[in-house]
């Protein structure tokens, strides 16, 4: 098994959970989220990867976009959670909590 590939797949699977949680507290810009992800150990992604994720989340109705015009330059897209996005995020959080407890138990040899 290729360890790097495993890490990449794991990160991809968790990325939506992280992105939705980043948007939970307030609206953010895509560039801002990439910078935040870089500070998270193990979650730094190829910078362009977040934009297809955000496009997918928007198409799924979990995220909405607001175009913000700026007097100092081109307009920017800011992202926020929809109500559906909040519900989805909450379900993902609960599933993650259950999963992480199980994984932790397996790692500590507490199963079987």
């Amino acid at each position, binding site marked *: 098994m290729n360890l790097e590939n495993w890490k990449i797949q794991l990160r991809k699977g968790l990325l939506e959970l992280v992105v939705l949680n980043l948007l939970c507290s307030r609206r953010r810009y895509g560039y801002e989220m*990439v910078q935040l992800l870089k500070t998270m150990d193990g979650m730094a992604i190829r910078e*362009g*990867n977040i*934009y*297809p*994720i955000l496009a*997918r989340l928007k*198409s799924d109705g979990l995220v909405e976009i607001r175009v913000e015009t700026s007097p*100092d*330059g081109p307009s920017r897209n800011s992202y926020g959670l929809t109500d559906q996005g909040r519900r989805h995020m909450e379900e993902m959080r609960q599933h993650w909590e259950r999963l992480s407890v199980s994984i932790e138990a397996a790692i500590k040899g507490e199963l079987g």
Partner: protein
Amino acid sequence: MTLSQQQWHQVRSGYLSEVEQALSRAPKEERRQILEELEFHLNERFGELSPDNQTFENMRQIISDMGPSDEYAALLGERIPPGRAGFLRSWRALSLVAVPLVLFICVGLFVSFGLRRSGPVVVEVSPGILMNAVDPDICEISVTFDCAMLDNSWSWTGGGEHYPKIIGRPEYDSDCKTCTLPVRLEPGRWYAIGVNSPAHANFRSENKVPADPYLILFATADEDGRPTAIPEDAVKLMKQINSKWRRHG
């Protein structure tokens, strides 16, 4: 535009074209959203480089950090329909496509007779292209098209030190042919501002056909009223971008 900025423009455009190609079968709205964000992100990264660090190697590193363009389609996942070659291998699929396609073409040809088939054409800009002694006290830039445009929809594009300071919201005149952008200019400077770009194309006709990208390039007079030079490489770039335009008369 400096040589490094020109190089960056080419590197960035090349990457955006690759991504656009990789997403050619993706839903249009998602493709547009991704390309818009990428262009902004790339400009931010380039803007963080000091002039001494605007090397070709650093530009390539920025592109490398974004990731290979073929990852974008994979990340969009099931939004990308199956490849056309596989689909057309089936005769049944071919008949499902061919008949409606022929009908669509016939209807399209019939309907398009009275409709505009090409995009909006720029007929006038103010300040004029390559004017080099523009009054720095003017407070607006405008573009006039040959047809009514979609109201409240525009893409004034570009950025950096030669982009004018925007001081208000753009607006169209009553027939939606001229869009005016409130700006503040300074004496003795050259400016470049785009009408649409490969990733931002909200200057559209009422039929939602986007205008081709167009670059407005001019310079203000200096404090003594003398013309300001516009760099040759900026002029060359403008001619490349604007070469697709047809003109009236």
